């Protein structure tokens, strides 16, 4: 797992030897510093992550339910078959997860790119705009959920009052069976578009000016310069942004739980895979089934990551 000597990159280890005046244990420590430094963190990860993941795999093959201490029997792939045949809760949850993630990613990337381009060249008051962008990003997601819950309240919320000024509404927002999921997506966009802005802005500022100037001399207009110069150069950063945000969007939990409570609301309006798995584990204590859902969920995450990164290799 950690056979680093076979790494294709040359190691950055210094060839200088340790001075001979140091005591034996110190020399031993210096010689073995690679693993001395790395192993505590790796043992922590192994004990708290690798072992629980292995256990989840095991639980997914048993009929564990009720109490965590109860006896359970090995049932093979029965949980997986049950989950994959469940068109009542599982597949709608998959659909919601895909819709939520795809939707917020698309909006956040387009909006984030637009805002990053607006902020690209220095201007007066830049510092204050950047602070405004940072605030939603660091705000506690549960508190953000509660804040929007007040704003979107059908009776007393500001959202319907604003709609009323334009002669629209009232809309049910979070309370509606079909409007709840898009409303939570709006909240996600509000909170996390700034993340895309910051990442793309970091990418934009690291670009050199020369290709831009060359394109300008060749008579390219603003859109052509963006489409054929900036965008291709920014592609690697864009892939990182999609990857980081995509993983987190798939696992969204806090704002869904804060706005709709357990099970994603009474009609499971916002029940994504993560919310479903949480409910199976801690509301219904169906550990076997929930573990199967989690393994499938995990495979979906890995699969989407793989799809995004392999496109990056194609692009470069």
């Amino acid at each position, binding site marked *: 797992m*950690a056979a*680093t000597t076979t*790494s294709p*990159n040359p*190691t950055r*280890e*210094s060839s*200088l030897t*340790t*001075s001979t005046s*140091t005591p034996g244990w110190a*020399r031993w420590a*210096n010689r073995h*510093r690679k693993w001395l*430094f*790395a192993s*505590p*963190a790796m043992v*922590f*990860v192994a004990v*708290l*992550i690798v*072992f*629980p*993941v292995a256990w*989840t795999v095991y*639980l997914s093959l048993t009929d564990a339910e009720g109490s*965590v201490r109860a006896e359970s029997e090995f049932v093979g792939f029965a949980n997986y078959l049950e989950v994959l045949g469940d068109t009542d809760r599982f597949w709608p949850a998959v659909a919601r997860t895909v819709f939520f993630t795809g939707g917020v990613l698309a909006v956040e990337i387009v909006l984030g790119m637009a805002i990053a381009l*607006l902020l690209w*060249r220095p201007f007066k008051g830049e510092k204050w705009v950047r*602070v405004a962008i*940072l*605030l*939603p*990003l*660091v705000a*506690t997601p*549960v*508190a953000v959920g*509660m*804040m*929007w819950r*007040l704003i979107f309240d059908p009776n*007393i919320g500001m959202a319907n009052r604003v709609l009323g000024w334009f002669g629209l509404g009232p809309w049910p927002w979070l309370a509606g069976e079909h409007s709840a999921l898009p409303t939570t997506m709006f909240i996600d966009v*509000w909170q996390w578009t*700034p993340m895309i802005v910051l990442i793309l802005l970091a990418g934009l500022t*690291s670009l050199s000016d020369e290709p831009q100037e060359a394109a300008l001399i060749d008579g390219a207009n603003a859109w052509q310069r963006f489409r054929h110069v900036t965008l291709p150069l920014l592609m690697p*950063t864009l892939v*990182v942004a999609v990857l980081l945000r995509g*993983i987190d969007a798939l*696992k969204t939990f806090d704002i869904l739980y804060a706005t709709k409570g357990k099970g994603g609301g009474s009609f499971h309006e916002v029940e994504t895979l*993560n919310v479903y*798995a*949480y409910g199976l*584990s801690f509301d219904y204590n169906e550990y076997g089934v*929930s*573990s199967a859902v*989690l393994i499938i969920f*995990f495979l979906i995450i890995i699969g989407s990551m793989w799809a995004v990164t392999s496109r990056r290799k194609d692009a*470069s």
Partner: protein
Amino acid sequence: MRARTPFKVFRVAALVLVVLALLAPLAWMVAASLKTNVDIYNPDKALVFSPTWDNYSKVLQQANYVQFIVNSLWVAFAATALSLLLGVPAAYSMSRFTMRRSALVVLMARVIPAVSLLVPWYYVFSNLKMVGGFTVLILSHMFVSLPLIVYIMMGYFDGLPLELEESGMVDGLTPIGAFRRITLPLSTPGIATAGILSFIFSWNNFMFALVLSSADTKTLPVAIFDFVGYASIDWGGLMAASTVVTLPIMLIALFAQKYVVSGLTAGATKG
């Protein structure tokens, strides 16, 4: 490159709109936290109202929030400190000896859904009679902090030139001595970035405390739900509680803006 005037006007207008869209909801939350519940229900008192601290005294005195603030601070500080202790040397090794595959194992923690860890943890820690205690909470928050710190610090160490350590060793320092006396002091900005970010993520974390904490050890994001009843919601109290949770983090972001931004965008531009 000089922008033409129409573009300048458009840009200013668009940026004002963006700033308003981002800040208005937060301002609304703070405003509601300073209103009585009667005023919250009254559209005429949307912007003009007589502010009251009642909601805050309710949150801090009746709802026992001082305790939850202390809990959140303790968990976030302990998880961050322990993660730095484990993560910084590990990141150093992984950067200097290019242990990319070991790094990948640590970083997988970012990808795994946290629910899949909670069931086994709950089982083990409830057998050890540790569920509801601070130890479990701190350990669970390290699951978020440690990979984050390793990720940020690896990028930082990758950017530090090796020559500085080598010249230190020529002058008689051992490799560990060179790490301690040369690399570590030079890494202060990186460590500050990683530490601040880990603190923010731990402070904001909800799911671990939801499952693993008890009435005495719960952290602020869980305590917010004390104001949400089955039948009705105490909006004034809820908004005051939300403000109490969010404000400290926003102040950190305000004063440590440079570090927070560099942490959030770490590794984004390397491709």
